[in-house]
């Protein structure tokens, strides 16, 4: 990896974005990178704002926060406007669904929750769909390591459904990239 990835995930509590960030972090560690992952959240266990981030680099990571992410994924629009200005100049923005707001050039609209709802038929897997989308669009980790890290993170009884979610997310991510 010759690039320093700074990825911010934004959503609401209970959507599972912290899990996604840990899976991404583990996948990147598997690929030999230095990685820092963390999260911020409000006092609500469910429904409050929730953000998680991953820094991955082949250099050592000292300062453990991100100031200008080059990837930002927004699962729900509760608080992303607060974070939008920090997106790096050529940063990628991945939006769940669609919005009429003025957004940066590199914006990718992917109906993540719809995919989980209509295609996976398990709304709870939206976070794993989003993992596939991020990997499909950014390529920050390989499909293989992302899948392995995902498999290690989900309960075995939910493995098959999550594999399906990941594959559908990956496909949607790649399609969004091509259509840009």
């Amino acid at each position: 990896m010759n690039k320093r990835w700074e990825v911010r995930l934004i959503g609401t509590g209970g959507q599972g974005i912290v899990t996604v960030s840990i899976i991404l972090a583990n996948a990147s560690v598997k690929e030999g990178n230095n990685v820092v992952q963390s999260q911020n959240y409000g006092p609500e266990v469910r429904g409050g704002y929730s953000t998680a981030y991953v820094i991955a680099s082949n250099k050592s990571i000292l300062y453990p926060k991100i100031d200008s992410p080059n990837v930002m994924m927004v699962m729900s629009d509760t608080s992303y406007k607060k974070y939008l200005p920090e997106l790096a100049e050529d940063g990628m923005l991945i939006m769940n669904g669609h919005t009429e707001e003025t957004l940066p050039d590199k914006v990718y609209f992917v109906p993540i929750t719809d995919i989980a709802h209509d295609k996976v038929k398990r709304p709870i897997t939206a976070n794993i769909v989003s993992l596939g989308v991020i990997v499909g669009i950014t390529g920050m980790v390989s499909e293989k390591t992302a899948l392995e890290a995902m498999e290690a993170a989900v309960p075995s009884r939910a493995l098959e459904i999550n594999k399906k979610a990941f594959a559908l997310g990956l496909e949607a991510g790649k399609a969004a990239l091509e259509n840009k």
Partner: protein
Amino acid sequence: MGEVKLLQGNEACVFGALAAGVRFFAGYPITPSTEIANIFARELPKIGGKFMQMEDEIASIGAVIGASCTGMKAITATSGPGFSLMQENIGFAAEAEIPCVIINVMRFGPSTGLPTHPSQADFMQSRWGTHGDHPVIVIAPYTAREAYRETGRAVNFSEKYRVPVIILMDEILGHLRERVEFKEEDIVKEVNRKGPEAGVPFFPYEHTDDWIPPFANFGSGYRCHITGLIHDRTGFPTNNPEIVDQVMRRMNGKIDKHIDEICRISTVDVEDAEIVIVAFGSVARSAAEVVRIMRSMGKKIGLIRPVTLWPFPDREIKKAAEGKKAIIVPEMNLGQMVREVIRTIEGETPVHPLNRIDGELITPRDIIDFIEEME
């Protein structure tokens, strides 16, 4: 060793403690230290250890001290409000010289403050939180890898020196996960407290050559008396001024006597530096980033990072700061460690505090701006 994994700061403490032989944890849930309790609850029964969730933090530290009296290595973890509640019993452990370790993952205060935001404002509380002159060791790791190793070192110090040892982290380090590659120097070797010697008359608070009395575990056949009252070498209360003076000087002085082993600092590019940053914990990560950035711009900046916070590494810092143009002390508080730095340097070099108290980490930008403005 050579093992690579993604490890959370709080998680690293647990595994460091287990490697050092900890088999007892008692605690009470509190953000941002709760993961430590969660992981101990999962791991301890696997190795025959005991986990207890107590009714409050006072009970937690009490149970830890009780377990330690039997010879079991014991630890607790908490954050600001809970740390305040523990103070009386930390004083008991210091006075009765019972080994124990307290992890305080600092959060923003006072009072409930900002529970999910970091702070370094317990720097002084960790040293002076309990009443009376007392010995204590405080260690501040700055990475998950160091959290593992230093928690191991804390357990060993508590056993070796019969003293409460505090691991002072902050919310950032507690909650972040990072890639850790364990190396040879990270191996935690178990150190056990010294016991009574066969054939030698035993006094549980003997003024030995190393100033560390041997400890007879409860149930080992010595039937000691342990009290928080000032006691003579037999362990029983005394108010004889001459003995009280001797006992207090030994108990407090035992740490200074072994200061070379206890104190540890880490430095980055200090030798030829004109400006030196003194920082600990997560703030030191920002400071190290500043050194990297400013060195690449040709600026002579260095970093001194106290790993042992208390006893404050006076000698090491004084030496490293000698002949510098300026010292900057960034802290997530209104200026606590800076007082120690000023005391240590004794007016030789100008010392500048840089404080942030908005619940956010001091950034490299904050420090660079400060340096540029100063110049």
